[in-house]
């Protein structure tokens, strides 16, 4: 079901004051509705009011600089209650007798309220649904369509074809499959580094286990060696000692605590315990020595720190970054009133500063990424782990400075602010600690050797073997844990890769399907838009073609034939008027074939670039090919124009059954703006009504319209010729030209002796009416505003207009009664009676 526009009422909105007497425009649903207004007579306000009613936006104001305070100019500045009100009535096209009325109000602070009929639950949403891609069109719409990039044009055209949701999903899929940000958003580098670190940990544990196994077992180690195999080999090695077997029990794995307790009951228990403790301590400290992989870790960290220095050097600087981050935090805090207000200087800006700062912070992306890599490289390194553990070794007695360095390093890793200087300082402190570690380790080894020397060798060997076995089992646990961690992280990476493939394939399939559908729809439109274009621009050896890119959303405006040349680009070849004609043809073809909620189309001065010929052809297209009733899916057309040439055309067409014309006149933005169909009798009736109440403000413009109406009626009825530029003069000159044409034609026929008018009428025209009308009325109507005349003067003007009309009429008694009839021309009556 579609909805048509039945009427609009406007008060206190933009240039239309109309306090207490809203400007009302009624629209016919099956006719072309034209609305003419001279400049500054309220036409743009009508278009803006419609846009505001449907979308909440005011065309022309939305793009103004924030400092222009546009929102406070929506309400008419002269309206006494400072409230703008727009009411519209729409009717469903299947039940034209049930209009739905919506009223939208706005106050100078921009507060907008919408009320609607009870049967519409969400009036705002309903009104917005009426604002389809064809509802509100102006000159810029078509100009932009041609000038846009092929991609933007393609997306616009998808909207015209009702496929905008598909285009949006296509763009959303493209957004999700963006590979540039995939690594960052999905932490790929971080996870890859973590997996490598876990793999290194497992490798170190495996090497340690291999070394320990070699100390207690002669077995050649299998390849690959796994934790279960290592435990089995260690168990087998321990079970070869009969002293241990007697305490072993049924446990499949060595019961280390039981075995240790059994050895402690021997007479050398104390010494054995000491040797065992020393061995464990030696093994602990041994793990804190420099490991082979550590050199690579150090080199990588230093390289990343150098790289970080380089990217910082080419960035605007970390102080700037920190200032931007601080400002952003302030702007995003709940207490900050307006994201357009600068937190530093407190000035209010046109742009949203959150977006602005986020854009600037984008310049630091390389810095942040490199800093994150450096932080992760250090955090996951073996040397950093050793650095932390080494403080707990009481024998090493870390100095206060070494503790401070470690503290700064930990803090820098926590907030990703590590730089090269601190990194090198930390490595130097660690090296110092390790030098003392080696000294301490050597002392412990020497001490143990002294203790062991006092024990029987068999017992020493047994205690040592048991200790090594226990270490093997402990290291196997760490090994398995590292393997499990690596597997978990690698699974995370695999899932991310699966996602990437899934989204990429989905995006590709969707894009192909959307392209195919859109291309077929565009192809189906071809006969229609070609016919419309040929009608607007007849006799032109040009055949347009709309072509959709096979692998994107681009839409190209081509010329299949340009005076015999094939496949050329239309925007580069066609004149502005022809480009607009092509754009209008494409819009109309889409509008006539695509169902939308809105069944009406409002066009504001869309033919500005057209000459008179093209304008007439365009009007004919609306009347015969687009108008609801002329086409199975035709639209209600509302055409706004200030073009003087079109005004005459509107005037002539309004006598046809498929066209209705209204004209705006009045005193915007202060006084009343009214709309009247060009009908002299109705104008006179309205003027008399206002004069009878003493309302000279309201009557003035209508008297002016009555005068115009009278002049045009005489010209039309008596077929009096006018200058060729008559239509393109502005309103005042047009009236002047009309009266001058009449005066000259009367003089000419009088001189030739062919004038049919009576002497009294002739004298009235040449000596009384025209001088009075030209001298008084026109002098007081330098523009169409017509203000400043009293009721008495206006009544006099009305009387002269009546007298003017009577000068071109005669008494006809052909049918037996007496009635006034206009002469057929200045030389003949309509009939033969005298």
């Amino acid at each position, binding site marked *: 079901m579609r909805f048509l526009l039945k009427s609009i009422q406007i008060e206190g909105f933009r240039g239309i004051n109309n306090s207490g007497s809203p400007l009302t425009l009624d629209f016919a649903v099956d006719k072309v509705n034209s609305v003419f207004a001279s400049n500054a007579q309220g036409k743009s306000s009508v278009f803006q009011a419609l846009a505001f009613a449907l979308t909440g936006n005011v065309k022309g104001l939305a793009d103004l600089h924030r400092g222009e305070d546009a929102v406070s100019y929506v309400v008419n500045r002269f309206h006494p209650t400072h409230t703008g009100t727009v009411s519209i009535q729409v009717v469903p096209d299947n039940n034209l007798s049930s209009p739905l009325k919506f009223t939208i109000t706005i106050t100078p602070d921009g507060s907008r309220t919408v009320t609607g009929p009870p049967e519409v639950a969400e009036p705002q949403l309903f009104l917005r649904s009426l604002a389809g891609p064809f509802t509100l069109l102006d000159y810029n719409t078509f100009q932009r369509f041609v000038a846009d990039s092929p991609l933007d044009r393609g997306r616009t055209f998808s909207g015209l074809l*009702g*496929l905008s*949701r*598909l285009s*949006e*999903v296509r*763009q*959303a*899929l493209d*957004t*999700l499959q*963006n590979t540039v*940000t995939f690594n960052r*958003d*999905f*932490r790929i580098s*971080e*996870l890859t580094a*973590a997996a490598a670190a876990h793999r290194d940990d497992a490798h170190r544990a495996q090497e340690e286990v291999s070394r320990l196994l070699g100390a207690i077992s002669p077995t050649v180690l299998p390849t690959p060696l796994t934790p279960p195999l290592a435990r089995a080999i260690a168990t087998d090695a321990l079970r070869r000692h009969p002293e241990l077997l007697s305490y072993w029990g049924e446990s499949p794995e060595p019961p280390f605590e039981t075995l240790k307790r059994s050895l402690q009951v021997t007479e050398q228990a104390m010494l054995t315990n000491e040797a065992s403790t020393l061995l464990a301590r030696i093994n602990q400290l041994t793990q804190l020595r420099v490991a082979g992989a550590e050199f690579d870790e150090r080199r990588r960290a230093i390289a990343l720190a150098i790289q970080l220095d380089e990217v910082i050097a080419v960035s605007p600087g970390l102080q700037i970054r920190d200032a931007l981050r601080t400002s952003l935090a302030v702007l995003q805090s709940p207490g900050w009133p307006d994201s357009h207000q600068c937190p530093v200087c407190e000035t209010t800006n046109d742009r949203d500063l959150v*977006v602005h700062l*986020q*854009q600037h912070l*984008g310049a630091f992306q390389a810095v942040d990424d490199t800093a994150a890599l450096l932080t992760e490289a250090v955090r996951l390194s073996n040397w950093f782990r050793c650095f932390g553990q080494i403080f707990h070794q009481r024998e090493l007695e870390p100095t206060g400075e070494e503790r401070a360095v470690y503290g700064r390093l930990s803090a820098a890793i926590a907030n990703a602010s590590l730089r090269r200087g601190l990194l090198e300082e930390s490595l130097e402190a660690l090296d110092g600690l390790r030098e003392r570690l080696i000294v301490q380790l050597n002392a412990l080894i020497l001490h143990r050797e002294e203790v062991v020397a006092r024990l029987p060798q068999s017992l020493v060997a047994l205690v040592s073997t048991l200790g090594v076995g226990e270490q093997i089992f402990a290291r196997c646990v760490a090994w398995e844990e590292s393997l499990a*961690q690596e597997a978990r*992280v690698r699974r*995370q990476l695999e*899932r*991310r890769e*699966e*996602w990437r493939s*899934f*989204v990429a394939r*989905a995006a590709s*399939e*969707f894009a*192909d*399907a*959307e392209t*195919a*559908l859109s291309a*077929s*729809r565009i192809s189906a439109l071809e006969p229609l838009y070609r016919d419309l274009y040929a009608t607007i621009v007849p006799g032109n050896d040009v055949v347009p073609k709309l072509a959709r890119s096979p692998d994107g959303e681009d839409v190209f405006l081509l010329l299949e034939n340009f005076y015999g040349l094939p496949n050329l680009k239309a925007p580069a070849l066609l004149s502005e008027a022809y480009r607009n004609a092509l754009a209008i043809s494409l819009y109309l073809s889409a509008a006539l074939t695509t169902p939308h909620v809105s069944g009406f189309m409002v066009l504001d001065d869309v033919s500005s670039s057209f000459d008179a010929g093209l304008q007439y052809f365009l009007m004919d297209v609306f009347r015969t090919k687009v108008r609801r009733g002329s086409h199975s899916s035709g639209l209600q057309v509302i055409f706004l124009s200030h073009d003087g040439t079109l005004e005459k055309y509107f005037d002539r067409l309004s006598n046809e059954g498929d066209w209705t014309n209204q004209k705006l006149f009045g005193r915007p933005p202060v006084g009343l703006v009214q709309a009247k169909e060009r009908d002299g009798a109705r104008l006179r009736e309205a003027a008399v009504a206002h004069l009878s109440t003493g309302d000279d403000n309201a009557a003035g413009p209508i008297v002016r319209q009555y005068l115009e109406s009278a002049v045009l009626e005489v010209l039309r009825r008596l077929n009096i010729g006018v200058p060729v530029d008559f239509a393109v003069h502005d309103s005042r000159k047009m009236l002047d030209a009309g009266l001058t044409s009449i005066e000259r034609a009367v003089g000419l026929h009088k001189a030739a002796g062919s004038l049919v008018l009576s002497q009294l009428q002739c004298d009235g025209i040449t000596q009384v009416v025209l001088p009075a009308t030209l001298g008084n009325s026109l002098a007081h109507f330098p523009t169409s505003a017509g203000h400043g005349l009293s009721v008495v003067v206006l009544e006099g003007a009305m009387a002269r207009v009546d007298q003017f009309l009577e000068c071109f009429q005669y008494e006809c008694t052909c049918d037996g009664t007496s009635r006034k009839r206009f002469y057929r021309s200045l030389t003949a009556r309509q009939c033969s009676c005298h």
Partner: protein
Amino acid sequence: MPFRFDPSQEIREQLEAFAAHLTARDPELAAILEEALTQLSPLPPSGPQRNAARTTANSTVVRQLDGRDPTEVRPV
């Protein structure tokens, strides 16, 4: 056969058909994708706003891929 929209269907039906097509391939990832697309609707204008929306949607995707609460600090 490549996936194609049925021109006789309404947009809603066409999108449902595509969702069913993806679900048949991988129900879990299809559900995650549907939620991500919901987060991107209405699609912000390209530039910083759309980038921010993508980051938010991707964080939801990561959370669902990892099967964890987004507020949890994940060990890596």
